[in-house]
């Protein structure tokens, strides 16, 4: 028996989300259909509003609802240190440690030639602009500890070391091949402390 159109469409849309296969999409759809209409509306509104009100910080490229973002505007942060990460979720992971007082830069990915992702597809030019403006003493490269993340770190090091900036790479206390944001907080703190010249 064919599904009614609206339900089939819902499943289709859900199945487009990362990590959601057809089976999970089906489970989620049936779950939503069982909820009262008000709670479904709240979810839908939250999604629409989050999308509408978020943009990229013109300084660090993190997702934000105000530009520049809270971290970039905070007078309490050390503007001479920039920690470079692949994704906004990595900023959240490092912030959770409560140990880092510098600023961030979000690349929105890593160099991945097999997927056709080169430096020009990442927010690397924006990072160069920040360094040109001066005042940055250290760049901490915290891209993921996998092949693409390491290549991105090496590339950035070659690009900016000649400019006289101290470039470090966070230590490999991280599970190799893992995502930064899966690491627990104490591992991340240790990795930050053990960072090395690259």
């Amino acid at each position, binding site marked *: 028996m064919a599904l009614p159109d609206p339900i089939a469409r819902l499943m289709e849309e859900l199945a487009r989300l990362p990590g959601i296969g057809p089976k999970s999409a089906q489970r989620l759809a049936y779950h939503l259909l069982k909820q009262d209409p008000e709670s479904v509306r709240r979810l839908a509104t939250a999604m629409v509003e989050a999308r509408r009100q978020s943009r990229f910080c013109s300084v660090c490229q993190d997702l934000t609802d105000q530009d520049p973002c809270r971290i970039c505007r905070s007078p309490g942060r050390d503007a001479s240190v920039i920690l470079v990460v692949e994704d906004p979720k990595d900023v959240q992971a490092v912030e959770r440690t409560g140990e880092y007082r510098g600023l961030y830069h979000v690349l929105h990915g890593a*160099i991945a*030639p097999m997927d056709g992702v080169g430096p020009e597809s990442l927010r690397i030019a924006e990072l160069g602009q920040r360094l040109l403006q001066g005042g940055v003493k250290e760049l901490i490269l915290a891209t993921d500890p996998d092949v*693409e993340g390491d*290549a991105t770190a090496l590339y950035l090091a*070659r690009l900016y070391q000649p400019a006289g900036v101290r470039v470090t790479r966070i230590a490999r206390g991280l599970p190799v091949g893992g995502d930064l944001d899966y690491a627990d907080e104490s591992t991340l703190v240790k990795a930050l402390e053990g960072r090395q010249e690259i």
Partner: protein
Amino acid sequence: MRVVRIGWRHFRNLVAGGVELDAGVNLIEGPNAQGKTNLLEAVAMLAWGRSPRTQHDAQIWTAGESGYRLDGEVERRSGSFRIAVEASAQQRRRWLRGGVARRAGVDPLGSLRAVLFWPDHLELVKGGPAVRRDFLDEDLGQSSPRYQSAVRRYDRILSSRNALLRGGEPSGALLDAWDAQLAEAGLAIRAARERMVAAIAPLARESYAAMAGASPALEVRYVSGVPAQVSDAADFCAALRERRAVDLARGVTTLGPHRDDVALAIGTRDARSAASQGEQRTVALSLKWAAHRWLTEQDHGETPVLLLDDVLSELDEGRRRGLAQLIGKGQVLLTRVPNEALPAGVPVGRRLRVEGGVVEVLAP
């Protein structure tokens, strides 16, 4: 180490079921194309988490089904555990231990090791270098999860670098970044392969001598795809830079361990071109025998499970003798078509019959 029990569902042509295996020799009988090899493949998959025959799981599950599952109970001196492999149209293949998905082979005490020998392995001698690199990575490499992870890492770096070479005009800084990684991973692999080949060379020579008698000795030598003068990462990067124009023109990386080979010679004759068919068979069996001995050493005396498919035909007296010695150690699954003679002195622990996908235990 041994497989105590193995079960299967929707796997190849096998009718769902299971069988207990003997700790010694399990003789698997039946006419050709009835499922004997599938039983060996199932054990290999429990060991490696992948099939030695195909990467496409849809070819593995029974026609008309949409997935398969294998279950095994493994006993090592340190304890026993359950492993499984499953895949379906919705779920990519995964290897499980104690019901939890993991990467196969990473935990030495929680893994099944296996050495497979079947007619294809004549290619070890006759085939191209890739076959011998697979031997290094898959047979010998199973003793070292760190080595296998270095190989996976190297493969990914290499594919990325090649994609970069083919994708227009990459900047020097970008290629440098990939070169540095290729160098680091490449040197680790060269060092490991050098060690492994040095370790198995005398074992293979001994095994060959046991089978071939007074013939000149078997020489096994590692031939690195990295120039000999490269001794550290800086050298490696310099060598890559020297080749950069060539690499860019061809769109591939022209030096590194992906171009390694293992040279095989009988005395001074190249085994690939100058050996007889019979000598080549003996060389291939010697390499497998050496791998079996070496894995046993690496695993503190635990013998890997030996899977022998269709090896009884084409045996001369020497190989028959060698096979009998090899079979005397640990658990073996050995296929045979009706009326094929077993080497003398092989103690059969259990006889299984496979016909039309049905596996049954025969009275001893």
